[in-house]
């Protein structure tokens, strides 16, 4: 029998140990990716188009595609997720309908992304005849993103105390006014954090895109912004390999001589971008909160 004090010490000790181990693994992983990848980075690498057989290709198009897909996917999924979360948390009564919706969201959020990708392939690419395209990819990413984003926004709403809602209602505000004028502004930092974190997930997603946005990255003409032209960066109907898909592809079938270096460099870019998202999330969240709460 240990006395409570020793017990406590042992517990704290092992928790510290576990936490330390987790941090160590993460650092090692991150360190490995950065150390092997960062030396490959150059302006040329970040902007040049990829080469299939020769050395010296870049990831410019893939990087651009990743951002473009991300923005499109977010533009589609954020309003839907916001609406769903507001409905579920602020309006819906607790009954079998909402329980069903919640269960569905739960299941969707644990769906392997490759399944989402195959669904996207069968439905958007084949059935709706959108082909391997940015649009197919963005829809697939929406499916992939929606459940988690909805849940994260709902959690953000949950962190706002009910007394805030009552305060709004007691002033004669309607429920909608209370939600839009009191609750959402107060929840913005936490919603934003959720959005940016999910953006990180979307940015790094490969499996859902392989069969939807495709595995080729036609060269883009960055002077042509007419979305109807095939080489225009804005064209949503062109196939668009993203950075994450690029990494997967090089590693499975890359035949350029510097495949290893490109893969390392791309991984570093991916990781750095996601780190950037996270820091941006914090910074923007704080800034926005300040602006919304005192002005």
């Amino acid at each position: 029998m240990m006395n409570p004090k020793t017990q406590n010490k042992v517990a704290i000790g092992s928790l510290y140990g576990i936490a330390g181990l987790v941090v160590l693994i993460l650092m090692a992983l991150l360190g490995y990716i950065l150390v092997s990848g960062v030396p490959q980075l150059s302006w040329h690498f970040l902007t040049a188009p990829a080469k299939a057989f020769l050395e010296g290709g870049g990831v410019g198009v893939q990087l651009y595609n990743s951002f473009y897909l991300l923005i499109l996917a977010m533009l589609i999924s954020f309003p839907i997720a916001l609406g769903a979360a507001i409905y579920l948390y602020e309006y819906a009564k607790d009954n079998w309908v909402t329980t069903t919706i919640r269960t569905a969201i739960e299941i969707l959020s644990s769906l392997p992304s490759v399944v989402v990708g195959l669904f996207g392939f069968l439905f958007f690419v084949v059935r709706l005849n959108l082909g391997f395209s940015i649009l197919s990819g963005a829809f697939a990413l929406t499916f992939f993103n929606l459940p988690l984003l909805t849940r994260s926004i709902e959690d953000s709403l949950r962190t706002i105390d009910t007394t805030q809602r009552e305060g709004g209602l007691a002033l004669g505000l309607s429920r909608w006014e209370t939600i839009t004028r009191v609750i959402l502004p107060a929840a913005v930092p936490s919603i934003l954090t959720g959005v940016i974190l999910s953006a990180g997930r979307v940015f790094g997603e490969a499996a859902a895109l392989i069969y939807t946005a495709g595995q080729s990255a036609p060269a883009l003409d960055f002077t042509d912004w007419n979305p109807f032209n095939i080489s225009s960066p804005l064209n949503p109907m062109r196939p668009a390999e993203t950075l994450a898909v690029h990494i997967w592809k090089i590693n499975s079938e890359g035949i350029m001589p510097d495949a290893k270096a490109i893969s390392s460099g791309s991984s570093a870019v991916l990781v750095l971008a996601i780190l950037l998202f996270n820091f941006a999330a914090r910074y923007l969240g704080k800034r926005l909160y300040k602006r919304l709460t005192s002005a």
Partner: protein
Amino acid sequence: MFLNNDVTAKTAMLERHIVQPADPEHPTILSTEDLHVYYGKKEAIAEGDLRFASNQITALIGPSGSGKSTFLRSLNRMNDRIATVTGKIMYRGIDINQPDIDVYEMRRRVGMVFQRPNPFAKSIYDNIAFALRLRGVTDKHELDEIVETSLKQAALWNQVKDELNKSALALSGGQAQRLCIARAIAVKPDILLLDEPASALDPVSTSQLEDTLLELKQQYSIIIVTHNMQQAGRISEYTAFFNQGRVLEYDTTSHIFTNPQVQITSDYVSGNFG
């Protein structure tokens, strides 16, 4: 004289408890008739027929779970969607418990301050101004003026006049509660409902809050739930004693304290309860 003369059995029971404010200077502004409140099947208010005098402070006292909050929250329909409220709530001759009443408009006439201070995550200024803006008051001067008078009435102006743009979340508990009062009176209500507004405050803030309420009753009719007998004694003209979902006794505060008609009331106000 009584609200339900026709129901003789009830009248006999209520005779003791219900007073019509005798003072013609303070006519009835709000009254409840045959009010019942149910949470699902559970009846939380079984008997709560009261008349409230204008420009006076009425205290609702009683043991925990006796239904004071339930009653109070029914008065401005804050229990909509939470509980079923039957009976009439007469405000200036209108039954505001009707489904077709504009609840939002009504709540601007019957304001409410809660137990825990709940300032919005906005600036001090906006806490007061934003509800007004939503109702179409956009003139900066007018807004400034309303913010200033409300804060003055809530006795907060001197402490915050130089930092109106600061977040209200940085205020102390007592200050935050005053801000909530300022916010409530900025929309110019007739009646202020307060549910244990001082229970989260220290003694100094509490006494300041009481002074504020005494000031405010010049302009507003105040109904306040309190657990603090001394507080009820210090500030209220009338006191209603709740027990198990019924109003057992309703009289002038001095009567309730010095000459209660019901044994439970007597036990409660003297602190011998339970």
